[in-house]
């Protein structure tokens, strides 16, 4: 029963995706219904897996003697992320019914979304490194296809290709680690390595650890790979909510958390994760402050919050990072879907052309403010509890200056969140266009998310049990009740953090009086608007690759004999290495 359920969680969305595609684009309303039905079914299957997480179901699909079995393990971490993927996935699909109304090629859209949901569940449930790599790449391809969904828009196509290339660079790191695991331990199953890191000699483990860090940083848009996520905002907004806020970008955090017990003794690894998270959190927060595109602000805030999760893992706070992931998935999906409702009715993403929308869209304003307060870390929303847990983990196990940087980041988060809310919903309307309220399917998707943003922190205790020693013996997560979390959060450092957040809020309130300060910081703002030079670096790399390709064009004569010569020369070199290289 439980094993069937586990496989169904992956299979249902894939079957649904195939059916939606086969139904054909002439039956749009049928496609909407099928997609919603299969997404909800997958969500139900994901939630039904929760009770089985402590019994450690293992499903083996025998696949011959070379790579070993394809193993799926329903442990706490995997089940948790499956639930996030399938439940938020179904809400995003429901939202799409209104958002994508009247679009052509819905089959392609829903097929990719459902295919993504299944692949994401597979990625977190399997314990076979080869399968992890496959699912990792499938999510990247779905992400690419959905960013470029409007494939007549050059910006969307460019954004998709950029996301694909950068995540592929990370994929190389993951593949290298997977092959090392297989070469050294003779098995693709990583649970043995997590239970006993001594299986791999230190030098190979080090290469694997940093390869995985590159993979995770590229997938989760961390420094120095953060540039793809803002450009991915060309995707339809439900996609941004699902893939680029709530699930796929969490795959990197998942990878780091999953392998933390194996890698934590690799010299320099935890420090590297900590610093990657810290730099990203601060840098992305500053960029969010100067952006005028509603979705880009949210994208930068996603990058920044993912930085908080990396920081927590670097500080050893696996529970804090996963709890923040949990809260962030909910409130960021809420913010994105709210933003989608706004963009759908206003027809632009530029916040300078919005303003005063609160009167026409009271429900969207209410849920957006709830999400914004959670993002800023205001009590008692879920973002407050999880962000404080992250900061506590940093204070306890990381250098104090990194904690201070993260505090500043929290203040800036509050500042840009309120700037965003103000520019969209308050002030004078900037355009004469008539604005219509969100559609019914949009509301159906928004209200549960808003409710969960208000209340999901109450689950902190059961969440701790879900990730507890019963299902993840190597991770050492001991929190088992809500009381412990409350006790840990209600302390002096939290008060300091709240003061910093209040300062960020105050800075936006009295922005008129702080012109001197903002003028002084204009240089930083200008640098942030240019993404601190990372776009220039990207352009340089692209240019270098193109000119190298031009230069190497001379070797491509197109002559068959020349190509055969190349093949044979390569064969001789390989043979020589095999024979004489030892």
């Amino acid at each position, binding site marked *: 029963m439980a094993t069937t359920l586990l496989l169904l969680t992956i299979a249902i969305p894939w079957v649904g995706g195939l059916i939606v595609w086969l139904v054909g684009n002439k039956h749009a309303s049928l496609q909407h219904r099928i997609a919603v039905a299969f997404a909800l079914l997958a969500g139900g299957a994901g939630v039904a897996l929760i009770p089985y997480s402590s019994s450690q179901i293992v499903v083996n699909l025998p696949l011959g003697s070379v790579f070993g079995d394809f193993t799926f393990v329903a442990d706490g971490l995997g089940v948790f992320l499956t639930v996030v993927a399938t439940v938020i996935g179904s809400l995003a699909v429901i939202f799409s019914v209104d958002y994508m109304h009247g679009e052509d090629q819905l089959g392609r859209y829903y097929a990719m979304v459902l295919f993504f949901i299944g692949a994401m569940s597979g990625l977190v449930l399997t314990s076979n490194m080869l399968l992890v790599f496959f699912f990792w790449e499938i999510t990247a391809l779905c992400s690419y296809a959905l960013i470029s969904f409007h494939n007549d828009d050059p910006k969307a196509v460019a954004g998709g290709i950029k996301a694909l290339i950068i995540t592929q660079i990370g994929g190389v790191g993951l593949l290298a680690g997977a092959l090392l695991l297989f070469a050294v331990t003779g098995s693709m199953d990583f649970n043995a390595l997590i239970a006993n890191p001594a299986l791999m000699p230190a030098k190979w483990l080090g290469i694997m650890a940093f390869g995985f860090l590159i993979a995770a940083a590229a997938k989760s848009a961390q420094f120095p790979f953060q540039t793809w996520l803002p450009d991915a905002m060309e995707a339809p907004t439900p996609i941004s909510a699902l893939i680029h806020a709530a699930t796929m970008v969490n795959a990197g955090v998942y990878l780091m958390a999953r392998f933390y017990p194996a890698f934590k003794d690799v010299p320099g690894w935890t420090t590297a994760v900590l610093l990657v998270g810290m730099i990203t959190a601060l840098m992305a927060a500053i960029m969010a402050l100067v952006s005028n595109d509603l979705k880009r602000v949210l994208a930068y805030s996603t990058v920044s919050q993912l930085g908080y999760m990396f920081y927590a893992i670097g500080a050893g706070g696996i529970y804090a990072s996963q709890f923040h992931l949990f809260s962030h998935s909910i409130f960021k999906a809420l913010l994105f879907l709210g933003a989608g409702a706004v963009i759908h009715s206003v027809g632009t993403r530029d916040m300078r052309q919005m303003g005063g929308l609160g009167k026409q869209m009271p429900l969207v304003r209410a849920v957006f403010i709830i999400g914004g307060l959670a993002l800023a870390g205001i009590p008692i929303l879920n973002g407050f509890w999880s962000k404080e847990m992250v900061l506590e983990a940093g204070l306890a196990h990381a250098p104090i200056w990194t904690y201070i940087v993260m505090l500043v980041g929290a203040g800036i988060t509050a500042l840009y969140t309120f700037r965003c809310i103000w520019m969209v919903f308050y002030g004078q309307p900037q355009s004469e266009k008539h604005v219509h309220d969100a559609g019914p399917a949009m509301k159906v998707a928004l209200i549960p998310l808003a409710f969960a943003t208000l209340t999901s922190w109450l689950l902190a205790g059961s969440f701790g049990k879900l990730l507890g020693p019963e299902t993840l013996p190597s991770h050492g997560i001991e929190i088992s009740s809500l009381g412990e979390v409350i006790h840990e959060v209600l302390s002096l450092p939290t008060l300091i953090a709240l003061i910093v957040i209040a300062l960020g809020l105050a800075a936006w309130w009295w922005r008129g009086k702080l012109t001197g300060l903002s003028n002084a910081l204009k240089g930083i703002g200008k640098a942030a608007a240019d993404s601190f030079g990372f776009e220039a670096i990207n352009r340089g790399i692209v240019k270098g690759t193109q000119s190298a390709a031009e230069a190497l064009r001379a070797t491509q004569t*197109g*002559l068959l*004999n020349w190509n055969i010569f190349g093949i*044979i020369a390569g064969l001789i070199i390989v043979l020589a290495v095999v024979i004489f290289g030892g």
Partner: protein
Amino acid sequence: MNISIPVVASLIILGLLGIGLYALLAVRNLIKIIIALQIMVKGVLVAFILAGRLQGDMATAQSMALVVIVADTIVAVVGLALAVQIRRHTGKLDTTALTTLRR
């Protein structure tokens, strides 16, 4: 050096592979290229049989050789079909006519 069967077989293998390789590198006619491939494959077949004899496992070697013969036939057929199409398309059987992707 006394002349035994393995030595003769080795010489045949090297000869066939060498002739085929030389032809692949030097010849530009598509039909001749396919013939060169066939010559090389025949060398490989002899190599399989020799390996089977040296290992004392003739059955495996022969079955492998049979598989290669079948695969090789398909390669020849597809290659010749391509050659016909290229001839119709470009009017030539010369591989230099196939460099149109080059800028």
